């Protein structure tokens, strides 16, 4: 009788996303075929390019690391039914935090710098998120609107700081100077070399991947094993019930935005400190928005976010390989990525309902 068909939980978290992705790929194949290229070769290129070598894996995991952070940021907020669209701006500010810490403090060793930069990134991201959080909690300004606006403000602020404060004198690139080599993060191949596993030295995947995985666990623990998580989830499921229980909506909103912004900010540890080694205007490059799709697809669960982030890492790296080796325009690659977002996010029910029907029929028959 419920509007949502009953599907076993395992099917909800595996079958539905798998079918959605399969549908998206089927439609993409038609598009590739329509522009006169071979869909089979394209798929092969994407899969081999993303997973066929340690080089491909390295890039896939590098992108996935970004998406884990921003995906977690969106899903934590969504547990409280707050739609944090501001991951982009929060990550930008996180990048600023990383840059200031790496540039202005002489660190003896990357490990200390990593701790400080992580704290700085989280702090800056959280500070940027708390303003919309406060406005929602105390003034009722809708968080979707304010976080979007704050993306633009963050970009402008960063532009100003890069051009007028951090830019290398004489350089026309609005970017900070390169960080000192002491704060270069160990890359995955260096870490794997310690245990004797050979890995491509090229891709920028670095120790931030471990932080991202750690964050998945921490977010899961926070949400389902602490009182704060309990309050966040109760507030998200039912605000009247949370109020009844004496959970302050304003306080939870602000806490959640702090955590969400902090997670988004942490993304900069991977992109800015791990890869670019300097702060550029475009440091976040849309990962804040991809995080929304990742959270949607990951059902707002940290482990789902992890898997969805790998998928989007694959789409990015596989898409790059497509662009390199086939004459498929960049726009079509964006279309393929968008189709996956569309099918897993917006058209979720299109897949869910037939699956629910199949389960209902099987149950009646069985």
């Amino acid at each position, binding site marked *: 009788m419920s509007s949502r068909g009953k599907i076993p939980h395992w099917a909800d978290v595996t079958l539905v996303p798998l079918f959605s992705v399969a549908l998206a790929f089927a439609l993409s194949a038609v598009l590739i075929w329509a522009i006169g290229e071979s869909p089979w070769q394209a798929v092969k290129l994407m899969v081999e390019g993303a997973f066929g070598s340690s080089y491909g894996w390295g890039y896939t995991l590098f992108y996935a690391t970004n998406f884990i952070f921003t995906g977690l940021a969106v899903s934590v907020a969504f547990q409280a039914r707050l739609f944090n669209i501001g991951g982009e701006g929060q990550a930008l500010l996180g990048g600023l935090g990383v840059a200031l810490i790496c540039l202005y403090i002489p660190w003896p060793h990357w490990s200390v710098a990593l701790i400080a930069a992580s704290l700085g990134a989280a702090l800056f991201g959280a500070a940027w998120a708390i303003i919309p959080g406060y406005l929602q909690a105390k003034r009722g300004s809708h968080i979707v609107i304010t976080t979007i606006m704050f993306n633009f403000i963050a970009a402008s602020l960063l532009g100003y700081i890069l051009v007028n404060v951090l830019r290398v004198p004489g350089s026309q690139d609005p970017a900070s100077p390169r960080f000192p080599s002491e704060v270069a993060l160990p890359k995955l191949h260096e870490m794997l070399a310690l245990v004797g596993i050979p890995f491509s030295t090229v891709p920028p995947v670095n120790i931030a991947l471990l932080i991202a995985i750690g964050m998945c666990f921490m977010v899961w623990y926070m949400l389902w094993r*602490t009182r704060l998580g*309990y309050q966040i989830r*109760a507030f998200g499921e039912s605000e009247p019930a949370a109020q009844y*229980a*004496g959970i302050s909506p304003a306080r939870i909103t602000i806490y959640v935005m702090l955590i969400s912004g902090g997670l988004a900010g942490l993304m900069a540890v991977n992109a800015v400190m791990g890869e670019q080694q300097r702060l550029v205007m475009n440091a976040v490059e849309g990962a804040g928005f991809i995080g929304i799709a990742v959270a949607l697809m990951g059902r707002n669960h940290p482990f789902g976010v992890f898997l969805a982030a790998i998928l989007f890492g694959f789409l990015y790296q596989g898409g790059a390989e497509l662009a390199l080796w086939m004459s498929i325009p960049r726009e079509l690659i964006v279309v393929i990525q968008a189709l996956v977002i569309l099918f897993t996010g917006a058209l979720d029910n299109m897949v869910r309902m037939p699956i629910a029907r199949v389960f209902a029929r099987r149950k009646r028959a069985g």
Partner: protein
Amino acid sequence: MVLNDSQMRQETAASDLAIELRGISKAFGPVQANKDISIRVRRGTIHGIVGENGAGKSTLMSILFGFYRADSGEIFINGKPTEIPDSESAIRAGIGMVFQHFKLVENFTVLENVILGAEDSGLLRPSLARARGLLKDLAREFELNVDPDALIEDLSVGHQQRVEILKALYREADILILDEPTGVLTPSEADHLFRILKGLKEQGKTIILITHKLREIMDVTDEVSVMRRGEMVATRVTAETSPTELAELMVGRKVLLRVEKPPAQPGAEVLRVESLRHVDSQGVERLRGISFGIRKGEILGIAGVSGNGQSELLEVLAGLREAEGKVLLDNEALPLSGAGCDGQARRARRIAHVPEDRQRRGLVMNFHAWENIALGYHHDPRYNPSPWRMNNAAILRDTTGKMEAFDVRPPDPQLKASGFSGGNQQKLVLAREIEYEPDLLLVGQPTRGVDIGAIEFIHQRLIRLRDAGAAVLLVSVELDEILALSDRIIVMFDGRIMGERMPDETNAQELGLMMAGMA
């Protein structure tokens, strides 16, 4: 099933039957909502259908009105086999339905609502004129007075319901189905409705009345069918049955309709309320200076038609709304606004609260039973060994015990709240609130949407809490419940207290008048 005399007598000629259902079954996934149901409704009678929540009454009527299709079975209307794939076919077959939640366009006039979807042609003017004439006739014949040009949003609930009936009659319905029609009405509005229904019956219309109130069945129906767990368990001629028999048929065992209650032993005053005022977010003054007291070991019942300030009173006392005035608990003032005015602070003062709307406030429907047991008590140190760890296992253990003590079925702490029936949801809330042994229990509509078996249990628990020395403030729109449980009764109307009565010195008629503001 053995047919008894009255059923045998009903074997009337098929031509006398307005509706006959044969072997109707309907399943939703694993849930068998209707099992092989057969029923015969004679033309020109009022036929009651009773049953507990979830017994399958609404499903059956939805099949009859074309919202669902039966998995198997046949429908005969006026003796002819009829397919009803959608509600349009139902209307064509002469069936009209008045839903529990009205389906009216709030900012349309009565007339516009009546013709909506049944316009004679693309031009509205002739339809409106015809409807106006018809409304005038109906008003004269059946006391169905409604101003045709009034906007729906300006009408009282009772009048809105009349519009729903008019809608059905405008579509030339011969068979009228009413789903729990009195749930939203005052006693006098309900009486008026029943006069209308009797008038319609005399005109030869057939009426099916779905309700869980046995008194209404006894008052207005000619025959009554009882459903239990998706099955039709019996049909009786109303004059030949009794509320006790019907209740037993509904529940499947003997039930006590009258609450056994030892006399109260009131102690010292626990709560004192002085000139309490509350203005809601829309700027409407909901409480206009309320003063009363409640003592230990006493159940104070607050009667009133829904929307006269009782809900707000309950929420002000529970710390969910801010107010002006004075509230003393054990001679100590409770903050009525700002810090210290929230659910958490009230619980710390040993005030427990069973909210009126358990699905919106009392429970998080998507939470497991055990998570709901911690709701509001999630700061309990037993559940939190440290701020960084919530001991889920401890809550789970606690929940198992509380579910057992309150006979919550199924006794599965991992089941989500939405998976329990209304009665078991309410038991879950009560288990949580009562097990903390509060000094004062605020309880709103404790048995709304709860089946008879659970009502009995809930009433006993409230009395047991009272006998243990707690004060209970009971808000209910069910007069029967107020009369049965209360040791003292206050009637509220329009944010004011109309008066106080002792239950054995008053009756439903007097309270009904006070509830309507006439004292």
